[in-house]
């Protein structure tokens, strides 16, 4: 069946007679296109062209369009193409195809790499400002919602808050304990390994204690929470945004910020100090185990040394940062979710951006706190 020629031509005294056959369908469209292209040269010399379609057994919209395209091209050059003996049942489709693609398509605007690069640079700069504005905007919206709720505390969605706390705090504990335990152990191992050369292994305990309580505990926990809960907030709220659920909520007289975002942001703000405390303790435990097993220091010595060097100030420095970081993660997650457009791709993109931005923000915040604590001398 495929042996049948799709197109044969005879050129005779300025008349080009084409004979079509076989299946003029999607399957053969590529081949047909090439065959028709090859006829172009002959067609240029011809006074008139005719195409006999009687041999065509299958005909679909690809075939119909190729035929129509041939007709139009030839017409544009001032000639006339006659379609002969098209099977009866195919007239409808050809008539349908005749009506379409009448307006010439506009060519896409050409772009130059230099201009594109400049435009992207400019947009990048502007987006930093936009981001700051969005963050401030969301912070403002959440604060307003928070104060409004304070005024009528009974309306507060406690169930929602508890539910969120369950998700972001309670369920996060195992993974956070595991990671911080390992980190504490690694710090202790490295400390002992390097201080041993000076015979100052005890200082490894100082290293673990101060580093974990002041910096590493809260940072690791904040980064984990940004990756775990910040991303899921963005994905969740973003897909609600995508499917107009947030619009639906708004038209029923609810304020989405109050109903959806406030409990989530609040949950993160409360969860982070708790998780930081648990994480720091786990890191100290991890350090202790390594000090015992690898450094040969008994737990008693480890604990005694820790209680010597750790002061309440160290502890405060670590813990004060936690709620601010939680707040920042929550706000970035919500602000990013509001930017989700209709497509699945943009949901994925905003979720990624949310995680990257909140981790960046957590580290910047940590830097500011370090400067602040240094200047007040703790």
């Amino acid at each position: 069946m495929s042996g049948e020629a799709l197109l044969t031509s005879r050129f005779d005294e300025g008349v080009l007679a084409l004979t079509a056959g076989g299946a003029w369908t999607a399957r053969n469209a590529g081949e047909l296109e090439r065959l028709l292209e090859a006829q172009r040269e002959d067609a240029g010399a011809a006074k008139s062209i005719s195409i006999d379609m009687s041999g065509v057994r299958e005909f679909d919209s690809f075939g119909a369009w190729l035929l129509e395209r041939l007709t139009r091209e030839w017409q544009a050059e001032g000639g006339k193409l006659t379609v002969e003996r098209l099977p009866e049942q195919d007239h409808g489709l050809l008539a349908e195809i005749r009506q379409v693609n009448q307006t010439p398509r506009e060519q896409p605007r050409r772009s130059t790499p230099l201009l594109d690069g400049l435009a992207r640079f400019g947009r990048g700069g502007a987006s930093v400002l936009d981001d700051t504005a969005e963050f401030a905007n969301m912070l403002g919206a959440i604060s307003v919602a928070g104060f409004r709720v304070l005024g009528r505390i009974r309306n507060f969605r406690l169930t929602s808050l508890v539910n969120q706390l369950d998700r972001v705090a309670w369920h996060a504990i195992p993974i956070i304990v595991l990671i911080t335990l390992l980190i504490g152990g690694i710090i202790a191992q490295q400390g002992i390994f390097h201080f041993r050369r000076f015979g100052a292994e005890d200082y490894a305990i100082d290293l673990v204690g101060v580093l974990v309580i002041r910096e590493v505990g809260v940072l690791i926990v904040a980064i984990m929470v940004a990756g775990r809960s910040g991303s899921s907030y963005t994905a969740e709220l973003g897909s609600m945004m995508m499917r107009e659920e947030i619009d639906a909520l708004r038209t029923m007289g609810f304020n989405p910020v109050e109903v959806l975002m406030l409990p989530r942001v609040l949950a993160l703000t409360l969860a982070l100090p708790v998780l930081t405390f648990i994480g720091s303790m786990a890191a100290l435990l991890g350090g202790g185990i390594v000090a015992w097993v690898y450094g040969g220091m008994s737990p008693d010595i480890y604990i005694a040394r820790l209680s010597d060097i750790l002061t309440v100030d160290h502890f405060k420095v670590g813990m004060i940062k936690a709620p601010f970081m939680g707040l920042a993660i929550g706000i970035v997650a919500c602000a990013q979710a509001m930017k989700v457009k209709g497509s699945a791709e943009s949901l994925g993109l905003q979720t990624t951006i949310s995680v990257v931005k909140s981790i960046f923000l957590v580290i910047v915040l940590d830097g500011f706190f370090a400067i602040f604590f240094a200047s007040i001398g703790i």
Partner: protein
Amino acid sequence: MAEPIIIAKDLEVSFGNNTVLDGLSLSVPRGEILGVVGASGSGKSVLLRTLIGLVAKTRGSVSVLGVDQDSASEEEWQAVERRWGVLFQRGALFSSLTVLQNIQFLMRETLDISQELMDEVAMAKLEMVGLTPADATKFPSELSGGMTKRAALARALSIDPEIVFLDEPTSGLDPISAGELDELIKTLQKTLGLTVFMVTHDLESLYAICDRVAAIADGKIVADGPISTMLKAKHPWVKAYFRGQRGNLLAAQREQPAL
């Protein structure tokens, strides 16, 4: 009658305790436009999804284009999948592609044709379903409900399949556009020998283009045949549907010769 190309035998589909299809049998001959009707929630979409293999059946067999769903190898079934087009009830357009890219998606994968031809044919399909060239670069989230339906139909028809499964193609369209779509489906059926499995609530479509109608109730086909048979059917729902106020109006119109 032409050979049947969709055959379902004794289908049972349930979700948990909810048995949606219960011993349903149906066959569709090549080149036929079958309209499937039934109350909301009676399992029309579930039947469609079962036929194309998206919903697992608990009993029975399905064969499409001569290939049995259960015994076919993955490649065989995939080859069958490439020979049909599906219009989902909610469109299911790829949200990160433009309308034109959605229509070209299958062409690009399966056909060896130039980008130019692909663009032209895709634009042709776009216009055939009643969209304008300006809609080509829009993303699915920027379309109205009716436009989504049309774009999804254009995608279902993109490589001129042998069978199309349509889940309510005309719902959400104004009656005039719905009529035009009906015309288009009829034309394609005539030219391509297209087989159409169409779930619909649209009495007009049933009268205008369907060769046969099947009514689903209680998980079974309760009435099956051309419109004339449906008008005489005994099942209460079918009777209410075709002999209700709106149904009667249309039936009366058809019975009288056109003015």
